[in-house]
């Protein structure tokens, strides 16, 4: 996740506040901890207003562990039980 341009920040602000006003849920995914999102916004006021709303009305799930993607690499066969053919 890179720093947002003012336009991107405004669009995100609009999206999140509209969902909040309509009482609708959002599911987001991010590589950063929610508190680390603040410095990504060019305008700290927008960041504060938006993130305060989002972070305080949400369930935060920290997912940790090794990447699962190597298991899905093309050409990789699913692990099979060893059979003795000798």
């Amino acid at each position, binding site marked *: 996740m890179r720093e947002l341009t003012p336009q991107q920040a405004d669009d995100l602000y609009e999206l999140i506040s509209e*969902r*909040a006003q309509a*009482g*609708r*849920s*959002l*599911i*987001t*995914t*991010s*590589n*950063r*901890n*929610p508190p680390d999102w603040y410095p990504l916004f060019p305008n700290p006021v927008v960041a504060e207003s938006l993130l305060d709303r*989002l*972070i305080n*009305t*949400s*369930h*935060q*799930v*920290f*997912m*940790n*562990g*090794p*990447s*699962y*993607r190597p*298991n899905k690499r093309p050409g990789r066969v699913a692990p099979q039980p060893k059979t003795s053919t000798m």
Partner: protein
Amino acid sequence: MTVLDVTLHTSLRTLKLSGMLETLDARLLQAQAGELGHIDFLQVLCQDEITRRENMSMARRLRRAHFDEQTTLEGFDFTASPKLPAAQIRDLAALRWLQTGESVLLHGAVGVGKTHLAQALGHLAIRQGAEVRF
């Protein structure tokens, strides 16, 4: 087919009750075999129609969600890492946050399944009748 049958088929089609139309012959056989009374017959036909509409509605909502791939919580490998908060994830699967309009923020390293889980929760919400957009 009798004239009455043809009329009934036309009526069901006009009323867009194709769920009833599909099962009508089978249900009629059941009724004639004495398995279904008048009220039962009507009730099972209505239920067939409701089932068809629910299936159609769910298929439509799944299409509109534009998921990258259809992932489900059943297909989520909780054993991939002991560090995954399995209990919290299973608790979120009850979707209580959806009724109250709360959000879910999934954060963590790459490749651990954040997007998979996001889509799986979306899939659950659709099964519960919600409109979802990925």
